[in-house]
């Protein structure tokens, strides 16, 4: 049984079918990439999976459970985490607070123990902090711990998005254009991190990406979309040499 599968998923936005009959499945432990020209519906699929939108047709199944109508705030506790294309960090909080927030789905304290800050809450806070520090070490963010996000450069913010998603302790990680806005060096770092996430942390990665070198370097399988419909599915080499895909990107 695959970790996640989308079955014939479709969504309409006022007459425009942003996603139309997309079916794919992601196996545990693989890096699965979705590519396609702008407007192909890639981020929309992520938004469907994060339950920001409701699909008009189709099903989403995660670990055998139907999550098509699950409320948005329950996705994190199921084990799905995502990053956002346009960086949705908490601008006026420190990096540490951003990461600690990601532990919210694993929160075990409740209001009354928090308001009196009982020793149990204190203990749990330290546990959260330790979990977050492991991610900080993994991504080398130590020096930015106490900086406000507004003061951080773009490259660091991208990495922080990734860090925050990792802090939720996910089984499936959705990365929305992880290399956009990064230079060559930073993209190489990102490639190494994605490989580490797959091999060392055992997290399954579902990625939307434009940078073909990154796609070829880390992906196990690729799905190509155009105008909301799937046009090719296979290994990176197979998909990149597929005639339909080349037509979609180069036109004619």
């Amino acid at each position, binding site marked *: 049984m695959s970790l996640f599968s989308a079955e014939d998923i479709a969504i309409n936005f006022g007459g425009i079918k942003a996603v139309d009959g997309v079916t794919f499945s992601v196996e545990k432990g693989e890096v699965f990439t979705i590519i396609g020209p702008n407007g192909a519906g890639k981020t929309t699929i992520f938004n469907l999976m*994060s339950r*920001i939108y409701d699909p008009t047709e189709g099903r989403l199944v995660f670990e055998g459970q139907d999550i098509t109508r699950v*409320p*948005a*705030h*329950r*996705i*994190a*506790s199921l084990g799905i*985490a*995502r990053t*956002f294309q346009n960086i*949705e*960090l*908490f*601008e*006026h*909080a420190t990096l*540490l*607070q951003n990461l*600690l*927030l*990601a*532990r*919210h*789905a694993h*929160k075990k*304290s409740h*209001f009354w123990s*928090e*308001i*009196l*800050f009982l020793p149990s*809450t*204190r203990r749990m*806070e*330290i546990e*959260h*902090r*330790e979990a977050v520090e492991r991610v900080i070490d993994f991504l080398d963010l130590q020096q930015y711990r106490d900086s406000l996000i*507004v003061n951080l450069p773009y490259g660091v913010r991208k990495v922080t998005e990734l860090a*925050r998603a990792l802090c*939720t302790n996910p089984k499936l990680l959705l990365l929305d254009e992880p290399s956009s806005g990064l230079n060559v060096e930073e993209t190489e770092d990102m490639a190494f991190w994605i490989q580490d996430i797959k091999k060392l942390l055992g997290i399954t990665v579902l990625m939307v990406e434009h940078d073909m070198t990154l796609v070829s370097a880390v992906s196990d399988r690729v799905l190509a979309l155009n105008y909301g419909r799937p046009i090719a599915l296979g290994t990176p080499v197979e998909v990149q040499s597929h005639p339909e895909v080349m037509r979609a990107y180069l036109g004619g």
Partner: protein
Amino acid sequence: MRFVFKTSYDQDIRLFRDKVDMGWYALLAILVVALPFVVSTYYAGEIAWVFIYGLCGVSLMVLVGYTGLVSLGHAAFLGIGAYAHAYFLQQGLPWIPSVVLAILITTACGLIVGLPALRMTGIYLAIATLAFSIIIQEIFNRWESVTHGFAGMPVAPPVILGVSFADEREFYFLCLFFLLVALWLTRNLLRAPTGRAWIAIRDSEIAAQSMGVNLAIYKSMAFAYSAGLMGLAGALFAHKIAYLAPDIFTILLSIQFLLLVIVGGLGSLHGAVFGAIFVALLPPAIAILRDGIPGTLSDWSASTGIGLFQIVGDALGNFLKKPGVEAGIFGLILVLVILLEPLGIYGRWLKVRLFFSTFPMYKADSFRRQKSYMRSERLR
């Protein structure tokens, strides 16, 4: 130049950063406790206002500063708490149950406002709270069996467990106690997951949801907690003002509270206290200036022989005597703070502290903000 060396996670979680910080706060505590014995009872009374406003400030800071939900009608909650407490006292309830009931009722009202508010954003929420406040004020007018309507309602000084707090000094300590409790409880929430969830809602609702924050629950909690604090403030307010009337709890009072949190510094508990000091002590300050300036300036005029001082002094005196000037001065200060120091008094305090703690290595551009272009908030 001081460097705080961190050796354990506990240091980030603790209330006070290190021994030096604790020392400063201890000094402040001694000052505040000694104050009513040093100054006259009139000033002790004025500073008790600071504590009550401080409670209101903490309440509004949680809702506006930390959760990002703007309320233009918080005076309504103050009124609900005040009238509820006064009513229960009149019915013969002892002080503590009366206050607890008042807080519960106000919290319930907070929830009632909070629930529909879940569907509203930004300006719509602000206007809804405004409408709520106007309706509540009318209810205060009309529900004469409870509030005595226009005639007003006298409130006796508090008697808690047989001990009378009628004296200004005793009331000062009562208010101080509750302010400290409120600050402690709020600080606890803010360093725990609940507080972080609130900040997340303020900065990005969508990201908060994808991290597992249930928006409905936390927004309601923010409203309820904020209203509850206002209920407590209302009970103390009722005693302090000694005579309740519906035209106290107007929109202008709500705006004064917002002024408090902005001038103090949005997004910090220090800001609530600074703002309270400012808002509570400005009217007496204006009164002192109004009475003192013409006299002082005319003395200068006489001693130096420059007639200009006399003219300026008289003009200023006349200006300050006109009705409605206080509101205008508040307005002017609000405008100046937003234009020149958006981080408020606390923000300025942080800059000053940074200057002294990194002296002589202070960089002049440490707090320079980037120029920002407006993107549509309508699509939030």
